[in-house]
């Protein structure tokens, strides 16, 4: 081979790699996460399960601090991304890049002129760009090399109290994003945005249009169907083989008053499957018909394959704020399992297709009504471990009193109040074949509002309600490691392996802790 040809070949082979050495290989998002954690949930499935085993049941007791990063902010809720040795962490109007081996800061972005805080769920990454939602309902595009802002676009109306806090989801060359809010009546949506320009490619509306049969699940003597609900507060999941995007939607508006919106109010409190190229609805399953309790179904739709009733199935499992756990066939949206995972008195049972049957007498009343079932779980991420077949969820068994404070048909925004009087927190491991709880970590203090990570090391990582970080035996719930970090876990742990060393990363208040086990 001539020297010139060798040089040409060398340049040809190395350039694409060299150009994108710090950018994200999109193939990583379709694989179980090992050397990277490139999406909010680690991969597209939402399982938050890592195949890494260096930290395992046998040695987790010796897990110790490898490094810490002090963000000098409060209440971080961000799930870090890790791509090519860099952690990317979001805050409210700010973001950080941090060396994933050492905890040293690479860059810090703050949006000029805007208040900063910790409250944002996380970033999304596409090639060498990062995407951040903000309190004033903008989507920001940052350069991953240096954190400089490339563009910002307005995605919703902050005057109607819409705000951004979710981590967007990247599918090929689409940034999928929605917004939050229910102070004022507000219609929910998902946008697909061009990662280069910020232009909207399609919008799916949670509120149906007149040509949709779901239009008739709302009354038409008012304009309530245009006013909203069905906010898309959290990040959805994606099946590349079926090319279906899965998302949960929030409650209908006005909140806690159903007088003005007779009907089941599609597509609120609903799990939807969309075509990510067009935004067209493929199927839906409503988990709280005609919700009057603010029971969003925005929690992670977790995707896994397996056998159900002797047949191979592609499944989707979701545990809701309404205290119910569902397993659906994710090709069709048909329910395989519908089961309460906490005591729930707001429903009388399930219809033959697995939808709950709400009790009219447990809707909020002017003189109050006692309700159980919510808040069964909240936005903190659950996890599914394919080795145990268990779905882990931090749950609450709570009794609340619900008042209808703004009765009648002119109600808007929040029309009721709920007071949770007492609650018991616990981590539940649910058998996805039956919806029954296999084990409950129910000793005092355990099972708070923290998200969950499970690993092939046979471990479940979370925090207890007294704020200790814990690693549990995934099969039994036994505590194998614990540490009090001086604050609360605002999201869930994530993990990755670099240079043959596995790190477990916990964001706590304003600090990111990186743990590992000593080299053998």
């Amino acid at each position, binding site marked *: 081979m001539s020297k010139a040809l060798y040089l040409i070949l060398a340049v040809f082979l190395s350039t694409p790699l060299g150009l994108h050495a710090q950018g994200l290989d999109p193939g990583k998002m379709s694989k179980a996460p090992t050397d990277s954690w490139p999406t909010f949930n680690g991969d597209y499935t939402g399982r938050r399960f890592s195949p890494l085993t260096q930290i395992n049941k046998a040695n987790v007791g010796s897990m110790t601090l490898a490094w810490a990063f002090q963000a000098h902010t409060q209440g971080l809720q961000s799930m870090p991304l890790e791509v090519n040795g860099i952690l990317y962490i979001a805050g409210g109007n700010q973001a950080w890049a941090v060396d994933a081996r050492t905890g040293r800061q690479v860059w810090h972005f703050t949006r000029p002129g805007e208040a900063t805080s910790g*409250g944002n769920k996380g970033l999304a990454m596409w090639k060498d760009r990062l995407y951040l939602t903000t309190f004033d309902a903008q989507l920001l595009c940052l350069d991953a090399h240096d954190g400089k802002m490339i563009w910002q676009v307005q995605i919703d109306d902050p005057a109607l109290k819409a705000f951004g806090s979710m981590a967007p989801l990247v599918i090929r060359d689409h940034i999928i994003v929605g917004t939050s809010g229910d102070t004022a009546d507000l219609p929910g949506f998902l946008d697909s945005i061009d990662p280069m320009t910020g232009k909207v490619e399609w919008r799916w509306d949670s509120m149906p249009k007149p040509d949709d049969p779901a239009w008739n699940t709302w009354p038409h003597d008012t304009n309530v169907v245009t006013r909203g609900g069905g906010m898309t507060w959290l990040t959805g999941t994606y099946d590349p083989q079926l090319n279906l995007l899965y998302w949960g939607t929030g409650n209908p508006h006005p909140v806690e008053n159903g007088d003005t919106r007779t009907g089941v109010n599609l597509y609120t409190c609903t799990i939807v499957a969309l075509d990510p190229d067009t935004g067209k609805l493929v199927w839906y399953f409503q988990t709280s018909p005609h919700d009057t309790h603010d029971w969003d179904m925005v929690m992670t739709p977790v995707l896994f394959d397996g056998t159900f009733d002797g047949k191979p199935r592609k499944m989707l499992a979701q545990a809701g704020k309404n205290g119910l756990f569902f397993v659906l066939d994710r090709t069709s949206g048909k329910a395989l399992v519908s089961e309460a995972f906490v005591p729930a008195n707001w429903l009388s049972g399930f219809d033959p297709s697995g939808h709950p049957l709400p009790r009219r007498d447990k809707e909020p009343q002017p003189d109050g009504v006692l309700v159980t079932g919510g808040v069964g779980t909240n936005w903190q991420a659950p996890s599914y471990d394919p080795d145990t077949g268990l779905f882990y969820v931090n749950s609450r068994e709570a009794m609340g009193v619900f008042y209808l404070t703004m009765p009648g048909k002119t109600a808007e925004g929040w029309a009721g109040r709920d007071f949770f009087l007492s609650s018991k927190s616990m981590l539940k491991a649910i058998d996805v074949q039956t919806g029954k709880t296999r084990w409950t970590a129910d000793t005092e203090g355990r099972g708070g509002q923290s998200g969950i990570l499970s690993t092939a090391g046979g471990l479940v990582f979370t925090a207890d309600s007294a704020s200790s970080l814990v690693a549990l035996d995934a099969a039994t719930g036994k505590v194998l490691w614990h540490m009090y970090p001086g604050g609360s876990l605002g999201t869930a742990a994530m993990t990755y392996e670099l240079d043959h060393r596995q790190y477990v990363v916990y964001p706590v208040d304003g600090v990111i802790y990186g743990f590992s086990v000593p080299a053998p």
Partner: protein
Amino acid sequence: MFAIIAVVPSLAAQGGPPRPAAPSPAEVAAQVAAAERGRVIFKGNCSACHAEDATGGRGPDLIRSSLVRHDKGGDLIGAVVTGGRPDKGMPPFPMTESQISDIVAFLNAQIALFDLHTRYGPYPNDIPAERLATGTVEAGKAYFNGPGKCNTCHSPTGDLAGVAKKYNPPDLEVRFLYPSGTPSTAVVTLPSGKTFEGTLLLNDDFNVAIMGKDGWYHSWPKSAVKVAVHDPLAAHAELLQKYTDADMHNLFTYLETLK
């Protein structure tokens, strides 16, 4: 045994935007006065189509109007009022700048009222007792002295005398259902047999901590001691699972008479 946790508002919080700083008392007073003038103007000129509370009717709802919410001192609303919206059937209303400014103040007050009415807004002290007292005094009293066994620990002429004066109606109801915030106490027994007693501060899987009767903080690893917890709210927690809605209404109706 489970930890019974007094639930903080963050139970259901998804995390919202930071709140702006509050205006000064003088600014508030001026806004209130302007809003009251605006209410009169609005009622006389606008309410036929937009309703007296501005939630709309024949005309659009102004509470959730993006234009109204983006208005700064009448810069957007003024043109709509004085120019009308002929294409949508709204005639022009010739008004002075100060009249428009008052209408803006009224609309801002209405928006604030509706937006304040959130889960995280102030406690609804405005729920009147009549709305909650839908039971009967007799049935409430019978429950208090009967199935509720409230009289085991409480007396209407003792600790509960005047209780309805002490708390506003929703506070009274929430407190009798579950008076959260009352701490548990614990007796901790060391291997030597020595005991410590005090207010329980922490009792997780790993450690126990108390504020001792001796006035000092103490903590121990759980594995090293025996802990006996006394939860003064245990009876309330148990009863909470048994109440029917009617029991709650009756009990409130009775307790509301203890003034």
